[in-house]
């Protein structure tokens, strides 16, 4: 059984260069790119207007952003290695709150995840270490985990290192209830792991190119994936199959993100080398 998603809107040239990362809150989508600014667009209006630009956030470009689930805290990390923590005001506007300064070298913090309330930041490093910082305690590092030393390209909180994928893993994501872990990358398949046992419970095949981004829907029913060849896929976890494929572009999709539900319909956003952000909504049918 397949599902239908319609392109509802595309923000053309949201950034002057490749969009590397998307993060969402209840009413906003944050996008970062090879340029220095972070853009914030409103997702609760049909034309997705630009809400705020965080100018000169990262001079060398910004490769990853993250938002806390409650939507109050965001984090961004630049190619120069600097990490900024942003707080949303009552009006929804973001302001820099603090920085993780820890003598960070470039790549020391690569991919990040924030805890639900934004209190903690977990990040992978270029040499595969995972560190956790306390954002409220002036960005102090509170935990260090050593791994086998592979380049950590993706992280989700409560991370457990997946085994079984030989090629580089470029994206990992925990299901909302924390029972399943999805991991994907150069092997072009998505592996699902049972978190409690660590066993691989499913393999989702269908992508023909490297997979760069994964995101679970709120309910955990669907998994979203984006790949090097520009294809975006939606997977049914129950059926363990791909239920929708979108090919808006042949250019790399660097990031995919589910948006909060409006009414009954789920929607998502995808962005990448074509510098635009495309929004999709589930077709309501009849």
């Amino acid at each position: 059984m397949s599902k239908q998603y319609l392109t509802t809107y595309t923000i053309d040239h949201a950034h002057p260069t490749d969009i590397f990362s998307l993060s969402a809150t209840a009413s906003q989508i944050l996008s970062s790119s090879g340029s220095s600014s972070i853009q914030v667009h409103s997702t609760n209006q049909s034309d997705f207007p630009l809400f705020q630009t965080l100018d000169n956030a990262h001079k060398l470009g910004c490769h990853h952003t993250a938002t806390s689930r409650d939507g109050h805290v965001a984090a961004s990390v630049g190619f120069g290695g600097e990490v900024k923590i942003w707080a949303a005001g009552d009006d929804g506007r973001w302001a820099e709150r603090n920085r993780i300064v820890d003598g960070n070298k470039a790549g020391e913090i690569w991919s990040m995840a924030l805890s639900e309330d934004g209190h903690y930041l977990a990040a992978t490093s270029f040499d595969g270490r995972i560190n956790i910082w306390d954002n409220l305690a002036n960005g102090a590092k509170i935990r260090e985990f050593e791994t086998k030393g592979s380049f950590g390209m993706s992280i989700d909180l409560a991370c457990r290192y997946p085994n079984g994928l030989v090629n580089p893993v470029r994206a990992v994501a925990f299901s909302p209830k924390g029972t399943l872990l999805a991991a994907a990358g150069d092997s072009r398949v998505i592996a699902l792991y049972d978190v409690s046992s660590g066993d691989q419970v499913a393999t989702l095949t269908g992508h023909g190119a490297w997979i760069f981004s994964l995101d679970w829907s709120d309910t955990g029913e669907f998994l979203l994936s984006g790949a090097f060849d520009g294809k975006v896929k939606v997977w049914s976890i129950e059926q363990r199959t791909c239920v929708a494929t979108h090919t808006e572009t042949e250019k790399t999709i660097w990031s995919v993100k589910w948006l909060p539900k409006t009414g009954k319909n789920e929607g998502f956003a995808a962005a990448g080398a074509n510098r635009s952000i495309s929004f999709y909504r589930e077709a309501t049918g009849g």
Partner: protein
Amino acid sequence: MASFRRPANAEVIAKIETIFENIADSLLNEENPYVPVNDIFIPLKYKKHKPPNGDTLSPADAEPLDAEHSDNLTNVSFPARGRPKEAWRFAVLVRILDLVHEALHDNVIISKRNIYYKDPSLFKTQLTVDYYVDIIAHTFGVSRVALNVTAAAKGLVAGKFVLTRADGTQDSREPGVPRLIDDSHDIQAIDISDVAWILVIEKESTFRTLASSNLHHGSRAGDGILLTAKGYPDFSTRSFLRLISISHDPDCNPLPIYALTDFDPDGLAIMSTYKHGSLKLSHENADLKVPSMQWLGIQSRDVLATNGQDGSNGLLRLSARDRKKATDMLERSEGLQEGGKEEEWRRELQVMLMLNVKAEMEILAERERGLKGWVEEKLLEKSNLPEDEDLLDTHQLADMTLGEDTVSDLRANEDLSLGGHETLDMLAVGGDSPNLQADEDLLVAHQMGHVSLADEGSALSQWDEDLPEKHRTADVALAEGDAPSFEWDEEL
């Protein structure tokens, strides 16, 4: 001493600075009664029996301690009353030490030829430079390479072109065996009307592969010139390329100049050095830049295009050094800033970092059409010409003689960075009447002989092998406190 260690730049820099500091101290202490007269000197160590090897490559040759008993220790003093030649030698040494110091400090390689052309009126002949560079290396107990000085240009070129030399003679190059790059100081003009493109290649191995497959002669992409500096380019290769880049008829479009590099931070940095000058010296090398250079490959789309379809894609992971290099470039290189001239390069570096991959040119050899086929495709694609069209007809380029202005400009600019010791130079040279023209003719004649020795390597070694003979003569002359340059000049 069995263990020979090549000193790091810093060690040689320190030695040079010590010499200069001692000179400065002496100057400041002129009134000091404890300092004897004539205390301004540069200590040198001459080899007495073993002639200095022009190209000290083996550790044994550079090992100074073994040979100590046979060394002559001499101080070249200033002002050295009654010995005007010694003042000149002092000036020569100061100048060479200064240039070596600068090269080491900026981490660039200079050739003996570059040094000569920094101040021909002081050095008078190339052999002066060759001789004293070797003496300095010997005195420091290091190989010449450790001074960042090379014997000659390291670059290679293949293709059809005609050189017109300063003395009006012409030298026609056929697209056969690659040869060492000609010294641009001796070139009056280059006629490149027989070729349609110029391809600068990062690595020698790729250069040789493409040259032996005749990419530059009778390929689908038309005839061209292949050039490599074997890695980061030296002055000679850059100035030769620069000369080619401005050698076109003003009425015609300039020949396209392409760069073929690895997909890694060093590949981009090497291309950037040709195009924009080295990161550190970009302000000084304005006249060595080739701003029209275009990136032929390999870029992310070239190496990643097939990923996902085949498993063994030949991609490599970035090392920690690669990541640091990429970040440093993004941080410091002017063209790589947001809105800068090289946004494509910025994007490629970011993509390298994102994917943590790099790829070498060899990856193309495994493609269906091989390395040559791939480069042909790219050249055709870039030139926007259908494959069957005759490239030579559309790229008719007339010969053009470089104006005197251009040539002297090039030279003048090389001299810009100097000037620190002008007073001293003038003082020292004052007594002599530098017969510049005669010396230059001499060198041209030498160069001709050099060039006619055909392919690379042999020319170089021949050139260097000649030197010990002269040096031996000179050694004796020096030991007697006489000036070497006269003998050399007469001999030549």
